[in-house]
């Protein structure tokens, strides 16, 4: 039976995915167009390098096309694609880490560095900020975290993954995830407070 003609612009993701699974590249192009920002944003948030993020998100889309038959629709298409790009970024960061010498940063990740001694932030450091300014500060603060702290924060806060799932993806223990998340949050609070103090 001939396939129904798709109105690509208005078709829902599910319909485009079905078309793409049959080999329709126009349907896949439409999916790329819709979700390219989201996939790139996740890659950039993790690797913090524009060029690497473009390459990784491109690679994720190619993998997505190749594995499209495996997509069963348990999660949304964009969630499935995001998982692919996250795994690619984690592999990329692991490779980079292997190439670098073990450093003080590594010890700091586990011990929490200076965050351990930081006083609790009792005031709301972001009160009165415009949303765009707030997002810009969050982005800047994320850029100042170590890779491990930033990754765990992204996977937990932005992707909504549970400790167990993060541990599996990052190939570490749940205790390490909890510890990294704790110090990442404390560092974020501290950075936000220091900018508030600078401003006032």
């Amino acid at each position, binding site marked *: 039976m001939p396939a129904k003609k*798709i109105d690509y612009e208005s078709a829902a993701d599910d319909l485009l995915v079905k078309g793409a699974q049959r080999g329709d590249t126009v349907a896949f192009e439409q999916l790329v167009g819709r979700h390219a920002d989201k996939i790139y944003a996740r890659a950039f948030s993790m690797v913090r390098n524009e060029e690497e993020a473009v390459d990784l998100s491109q690679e994720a889309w190619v993998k997505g096309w190749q594995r499209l038959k495996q997509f069963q629709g348990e999660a949304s298409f964009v969630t499935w694609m995001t998982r692919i790009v996250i795994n690619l970024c984690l592999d990329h960061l692991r490779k980079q880490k292997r190439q670098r010498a073990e450093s003080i940063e590594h010890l700091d990740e586990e011990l929490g560095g200076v965050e351990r001694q930081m006083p609790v932030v009792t005031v709301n450091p972001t009160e009165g900020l415009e949303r765009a300014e707030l997002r810009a500060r969050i982005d800047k603060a994320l850029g100042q975290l170590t890779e491990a702290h930033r990754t765990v924060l992204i996977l937990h806060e932005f992707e909504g993954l549970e400790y167990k799932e993060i541990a599996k993806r990052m190939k570490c223990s749940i205790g390490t995830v909890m510890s990294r998340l704790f110090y990442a949050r404390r560092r974020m609070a501290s950075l936000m407070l220091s900018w508030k103090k600078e401003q006032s």
Partner: protein
Amino acid sequence: MNTNEELKLQAYADGELSPREAAKVAALIERDGEARALFTELKRTKDLLAANEPEILLPESREFHWSKIAREIERHESRPAMVRRFASPAWWLKYFSPVAATALIAAMVIIYPNITDNESDAQTAPAPETSSVVFRSQSEGMTVVWLQGDENYEFANPESDL
């Protein structure tokens, strides 16, 4: 407070504790001011991030991004260029189209023999060792040929000797 208690406070904020453990931590927050302050800080940071993910946009156009992806898919699949496919045409159209196209070309050759010297559409012929992607940017109204590959040509860099 020890590290274990601190991490329990966080797990409580994240909803990762069993009901029994959660009750214990809730009681600790109730009676201990230091625990309460730390819990507030952790919860505030968590909520702040969850509601304010930085907005990051792809720095290149969709068309350019897609053309590179299509090129990679094509390379992996080692098949002819990915052209826009249309949903299964009627069976007769599959046979009729080549015949009609051939007839049209033949007619054009007879009527205007000199026109076949030229080609009416843009075409790309990359050198054998060069890989390139070609697309037309609808929004910017221009055709782009992007050379890919590991080799970078220093055509415009100010550090190169011009």
